[in-house]
């Protein structure tokens, strides 16, 4: 059984068709890229998977369960995590606090135990702090852990957002253009982290990315969208050689 299966998704916005009849599946352990020209519906697809958008038709199955009608928070509890194209961190909080909120679904403290703190809640907070510190070490952001997120450079914020998603210990990680706006060195670091997450942690990933070089290098499978339709699906090599894909990309200025 694939970890994720998307069936015949249809999503409209007042006349604009963002997705028309999109189906595809993501295998367990796969690093799956979604590509396509600007406005093709990539972000909309991710939003349908994480529950931020509700499709008018079609269904989303995660790990065998139909999650189409579940709230984003519910899907997160089931193991779906994501990052946003336009970073959506808690800007006023420190990096550490952002990551600790990533532990929310794994924590069991209530109002009472949290307010009393000493005892159960304290032990739990320390345990979660350790998990978060491992992620901080892994993504090499030790030096900024106490910094307020809003003050950080764009590339670092992208990395913090990835860290926050990782803190959820997801089974499916959705990344919306994780390297957009980064310089070559930052991109290289990010690509390395993404590969490590997939290989060492075994996390299944869907990654939207415009940089073809990166996509061809790291992904196992690629789904191509154009004007809300799936026009190709396969290994990087298959997709690259597909005439429909070449046409879609030649038909517009490369984004």
């Amino acid at each position, binding site marked *: 059984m694939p970890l994720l299966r998307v069936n015949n998704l249809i999503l409209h916005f007042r006349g604009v068709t963002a997705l028309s009849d999109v189906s595809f599946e993501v295998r367990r352990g796969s690093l799956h890229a979604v590509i396509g020209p600007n406005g093709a519906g990539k972000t909309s697809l991710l939003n349908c998977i994480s529950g931020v958008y509700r499709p008018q038709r079609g269904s989303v199955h995660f790990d065998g369960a139909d999650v189409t009608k579940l709230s984003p928070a519910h899907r997160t*509890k089931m193991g779906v995590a*994501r990052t946003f194209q336009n970073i*959506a961190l808690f800007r*006023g909080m420190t990096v550490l606090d952002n990551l600790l909120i990533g532990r929310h*679904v794994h924590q069991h*403290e209530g109002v009472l135990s*949290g*307010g009393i703190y000493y005892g159960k809640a304290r032990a739990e907070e320390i345990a979660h*702090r350790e998990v978060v510190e491992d992620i901080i070490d892994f993504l090499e952001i030790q030096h900024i852990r106490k910094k307020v997120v809003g003050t950080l450079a764009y590339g670092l914020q992208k990395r913090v957002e990835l860290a926050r998603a990782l803190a959820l210990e997801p089974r499916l990680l959705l990344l919306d253009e994780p390297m957009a706006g980064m310089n070559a060195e930052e991109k290289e670091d990010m690509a390395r982290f993404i590969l490590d997450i997939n290989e060492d942690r075994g996390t299944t990933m869907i990654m939207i990315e415009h940089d073809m070089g990166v996509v061809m290098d790291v992904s196992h499978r690629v789904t191509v969208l154009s004007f809300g339709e799936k026009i190709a699906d396969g290994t990087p090599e298959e997709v690259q050689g597909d005439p429909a894909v070449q046409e879609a990309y030649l038909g517009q200025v490369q984004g």
Partner: protein
Amino acid sequence: MRCGDFRESYAEDMSLFESPLPRVLLSGLLLFLLVLPQFATTYWLDVLNRICIAIIGAVGLNVVTGYTGLISLGTAAFLAVGGFATAAMAGKAGLPFVIVIPLSGLLTAMVGLVFGIPSLRLKGLYLAVATLAAHYIVEFTATHWDSMTGGVNGISIPPAQFAGLVLSDDRKMFYLIFPVTVGLLFFTKNLFRTKVGKAFVAIRDQDISAEVMGVNVFRYKLLSFAVSSFIVGVAGSLLAYQARIISPENFPITLAIDYLGMVIIGGLGSILGSIFGAIFITLLPEMLRLGTDALSNQWPALMQLVAPLKAGVFGLVVILFLIFEPDGMAARWNHIKAYWKLYPFSY
């Protein structure tokens, strides 16, 4: 001299106090406050108790407004619910305060939960108007439910008692109010370094992101209203015990605005700020009264000016803070602290 610091374990890094010094200072302050009533006059004991109650109320309001970002004009109403619940339980039922105070809080929490429901759909100004409606519903109920609240005539409350102990004056009341205040302050401070409190702040900062991080925004907004109203309800309960007689007139909408002033002046989303704000707003009319008293020999007309002066100064101070220090007195305090921490190498 304190110059920077470093920590050896996460537990240490997560502790409430940055270093041993504040802990010692705080213990000293608490001890001082504990013996203070032995030397204070009745007038100052009354003021001291009212400051403590205001601190509790301000912390409660800060939970929902400062930390969760949901504006509430319902503080006076929640104080009233706590107060009248106490009047009923302590007066009619003759229950001891150890039961009455928490029950008053719980009852207020339930009322707060109901009045928090609009927050699921409404934000900002619209939510403020919805809580304003809540205020008038409570006020109407308190005025017309004579058998329970005494209506416009008000209702008297017997002194707080428990197992033969009768807290008959302000000095004795202080030893109830003060520990409750300190306890609730620690409780709230802790709440915001654990799961629930962080979820509240996440909702304030970015509600979509919070939802995607698995925070059930719907549930946590209601929870925030419940926790906040519980704390305000406890303040209302203590207020009833201290005032010994309450009527709907004690809980006007201007009281709710006073509390909003406290958290704005003190600092939204800051426990310390709630304390500063509550002290400031409670002392303001007292200071004005002392000032006008002193001058009333020369200008007797001044005595009539205390109330409008209070309103004027209150408004002015809120506006000045909004313009010059939107993060409140707590932020100012942190600047000063940061400066001394690295003194004399402050740059």
